[in-house]
């Protein structure tokens, strides 16, 4: 039942924040802080106490994909919801879920803190929307019933739409509607794919259910599986976003208020990666394998295109938005490489990107509150005005470009090593993207903070609240850079489990670049990858080099 609290606490705190905010705006802010901190604390407790128990249940898991899925959960809740349609209220959490929930609540808290000064209009409703977004996100990461997943997936669009449309910047209405329609169209296509999957499964077994664990391993023609996989891919690729479906992102991220940008970049777009890991690949491993080349091409284009576009922006917020396109290209690379290293890298990348990009958005938001512009042409030499701000911005720019010693470097390095085993050229081109990242990150610092201060700006440096926020994020990124093991351990069951689910498919090949070769050799190679899947990070690096 503890899982239910993760959704309920923010969901119930939301109307409370609204009611209190009508008379005393400060109370709405504090309610929102409480509504995100409380689940964060409970979650941290669960993470610490249950992590070891997870190892035990995972070792004692039953045979087959369903047993595998059932054995990997720390906790689950299941109740009939709409019985006649085979829909259940099925929540479950494993290591990956815990990581995603940590991100959700931590960034939800940061989003509240980041809007402490900037939001003065309709404060109560604003925090209602933030908390509902957080509740919806928690629901997305906890759902194992595909209908429930879709339900939360769509539901959280509404508060996010309002956040952008009401509290956003100049072109907010355009950006909000574009965001809404892009995600909704792709979501509906996924819904059709989900329903088709359920119908196929129902025809085969006589059981109509949206339960993901039962739908795993549904037999269907390869062409059908491919089409259904595309339905899922479309939805998640829009969220991620993958080139060429990314065009909503620069608009939405730029026009959203700071809190909206933080939640969008930090958590919302991670649903794309999460959905691919959790649902798309395990459900259609062979189809994913067939699609791999296309996806890798899209990912590489996204990495380089995002970086080049970021370099070309004069709006600082838009620049940061485009870096997300680039970084999420790495995630797409890693997901489709589908080996232990790449998957560990993907999970690490999700966390590190959320922190570094979230911090940059808060930084831009803080700057905008002070000087009322995001145009880097009107900045320059700000380091002299606000040295603490400059130093902090430099740190996150370095994190974004993948400086060794910080989490982002470890994540992107792991992904590239994993991708190298699948496709040399994709890894090489992806690595080129890292060079571009250096260019745009340093160029941003140069234009905004370095050089002569010629515009006569004078404003307050970081406040204590901001120092606290950025300090926590810096500490987390440094920690992840030097000691990523706790995170990797938490995600290990998920990574191993995911690979075992797909062990019987063509995706389990260690070197699928040889897919033109004979199938027998590929089949023989499959168990080898299984074995490596169970080893830890350090073992992997040793074993596979």
């Amino acid at each position, binding site marked *: 039942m503890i899982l239910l609290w993760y959704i309920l606490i923010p969901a119930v705190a939301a109307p409370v924040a609204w009611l209190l905010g009508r008379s005393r705006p400060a109370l709405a802010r504090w309610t929102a802080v409480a509504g995100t901190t409380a689940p964060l604390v409970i979650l941290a407790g669960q993470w610490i106490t249950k992590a070891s128990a997870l190892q035990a249940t995972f070792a004692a898991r039953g045979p087959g994909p369903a047993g595998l899925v059932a054995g990997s959960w720390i906790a689950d809740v299941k109740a009939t*919801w*709409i*019985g*006649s*349609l085979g829909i259940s209220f099925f929540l479950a959490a494993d290591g990956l879920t815990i990581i995603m929930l940590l991100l959700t609540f931590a960034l939800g808290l940061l989003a509240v803190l980041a809007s402490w000064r900037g939001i003065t209009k309709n404060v109560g409703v604003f925090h209602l929307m933030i908390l509902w977004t957080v509740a919806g996100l928690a629901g997305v990461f906890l759902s194992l019933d595909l*209908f429930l997943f*879709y*339900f*939360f997936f*769509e*539901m959280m*669009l*509404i508060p996010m*739409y*309002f956040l952008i*449309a*009401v509290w956003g910047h100049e072109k*907010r*209405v355009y950006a*909000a*509607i574009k965001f*809404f*329609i892009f995600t*909704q*169209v792709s979501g*509906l*296509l996924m*819904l*059709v794919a989900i*329903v*088709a999957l*359920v*119908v196929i499964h129902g025809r085969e077994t006589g059981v109509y259910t949206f339960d993901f664990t039962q739908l795993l391993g549904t037999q269907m023609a390869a062409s059908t599986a491919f089409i259904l996989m595309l339905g899922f891919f479309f939805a998640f690729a829009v969220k991620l976003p993958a080139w060429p479906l990314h065009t909503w992102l620069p608009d939405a991220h730029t026009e959203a208020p700071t809190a909206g940008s933080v939640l969008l970049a930090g958590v919302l777009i991670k649903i794309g990666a999460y959905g691919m890991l959790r649902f798309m690949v395990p459900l259609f491993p062979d189809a994913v394998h067939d699609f791999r080349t296309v996806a890798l091409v899209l990912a590489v284009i996204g990495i380089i295109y995002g970086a080049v576009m970021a370099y070309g922006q004069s709006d600082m917020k838009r620049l940061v938005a485009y870096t997300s396109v680039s970084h999420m290209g790495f995630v797409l690379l890693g997901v489709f490489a589908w080996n232990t290293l790449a998957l560990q890298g993907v999970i690490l990348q999700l966390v590190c990107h959320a922190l570094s990009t979230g911090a940059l958005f808060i930084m831009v938001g803080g700057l905008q509150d002070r000087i009322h512009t995001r145009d880097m042409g009107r900045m320059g030499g700000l380091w002299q005005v606000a040295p603490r701000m400059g130093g902090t911005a430099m740190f996150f720019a370095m994190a974004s470009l993948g400086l060794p010693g910080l989490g982002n470097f470890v994540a992107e390095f792991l992904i590239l090593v994993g991708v190298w085993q699948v496709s040399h050229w994709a890894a090489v081109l992806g690595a080129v993207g890292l060079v571009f990242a250096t260019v745009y990150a340093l160029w941003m610092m140069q234009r905004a903070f370095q050089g002569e201060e010629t515009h006569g700006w004078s404003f307050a440096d970081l406040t204590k609240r901001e120092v606290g926020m950025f300090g926590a994020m810096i500490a987390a990124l440094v920690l992840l850079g030097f000691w990523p093991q706790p995170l990797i351990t938490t995600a290990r069951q998920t990574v191993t489990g995911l690979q075992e689910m797909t062990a019987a498919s063509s995706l389990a090949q260690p070197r699928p670049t040889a897919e033109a070769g004979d199938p027998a050799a590929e089949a023989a190679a499959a168990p080898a990858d299984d074995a490596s899947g169970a080893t830890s990070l350090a073992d992997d690096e040793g074993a596979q080099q």
Partner: protein
Amino acid sequence: MKAGDLLTISPLIALTLTPVVVMLFAAFRRSHGLALGLTLGGLAVTFGTLFVSASRTARVVTPLVTMDAYALFFIGLLTVATALVAVLSWSYLGRLRVRPEEYYVLLLTATLGGAALVAATHFASFFLGLEILSVSLYALIVYPVHRADAVEAAVKYLVLAGATSAFLVFGMALVYAEAGTMSAAGVAKLVAGGLGSQQVVVTVGIVMILVGVGFKLAVVPFHMWTPDVYEGAPAPVTAYVATVSKGAVFALLLRFLLPVSSDQSSTLFLALAAVAVASMVAGNLLALRQDNVKRILAYSSIAHLGYLLVAFLASGERAGVAAGFYLVAYFATTLAAFGVITVLSTGDRDADQLSDYRGLGARRPVLAAVFAVALFSLAGMPLTMGFIGKFVIVTAGAGSALWALVIVLVLTSAIGLYYYTRLIVVMYVRRPEELELAGAGPAARVAAAGGAAGVVVLAALTAFLLVFGVYPSPLLRLVEHAVSTLPWP
């Protein structure tokens, strides 16, 4: 017919007596409150008799009507919808400077027509019900006679409805002349047998009947009247036309032409599929360019009837459940949306301009919230019944492998998002002062009007939309029970 059958058809009797009572009272004592009270009382009695009728075994009472669970379910739906429209009309009529009592008589006779339609198992009761409904609607649409647009709408509706009624009767005559049957079961058998090349006359007859039905449902290509009538008719009457009139005819369509869905290559099936696709595409595309809220909702309702046709064309009981549930969702949503327009309207004109809704979120937060929930439900967003409704239709369509229709449904409803969100933006993002000086423009006048009873109805509808949007199981079971009495193949 036995004496006990009177109990079985007691809902129809109660519904027939109510307008008579209201009319007689109005003849002796003109009182708006009394008329509304009697109307609601009569509708409550009708609703109560549904349970009396349900406790008796369903049977065909004379060849004309069947009081099975299906008929009772829809009579209940029509009764409740009529009661809500009546309450919403109360303050609206008060502002209209017309004698209000006869309005309720017309509303009740129209509902009687609708109830006859959903229970009809014979061409005679079908035609009778349809005409009672139509004739009442002509008068209802033109009720504010001093408004030119209402007169225009009523004339348009009268001429077109008259023409299509002629088609309908001629179609019935052709079917009877060739096949010698007038009953729903007979027509269903004809359709199920497959209309071969020998049965050209029957096919032509059924197609002509479909023209009459299609006109009432306002599906493309019989939709031309919809935007004008929606715009010209008084807002509560528009709500009535959009829900009760269409819902009753759709329920009838399901009863008479159920077997169409079993053969996906038949001409009839393909024709209806084309109508469904055209309605979904045209409805959503044409709504994009409208600036009048009632016209937007008119085109949106064309699209929604297209979605309902997808459920109709999907085979099996699951499809019947989808259609029934979607109808309930559509009723509640449409009543809520037009209810907001009704409450905001003044005696001079209806609140149908986009500018009337500028900053509504700040001026009338409750009404804005109701309208937002209704719009999200129309758009099919989660937490509302519209979402579950669309979902069950997609499930039914997928279950019958109607992939093309399902994909069209999904893509066109995405187009629909644009004009629904546009309205929401107008309510919540635009400030009233952007348009006009405070207190001077129509928006301010609109804000001053409004009835408390209407707001209560709207709040109840919103709660209904949200509760059954989150937990639809009880309603799904009820609909399942209702449609299970149809002769599914």
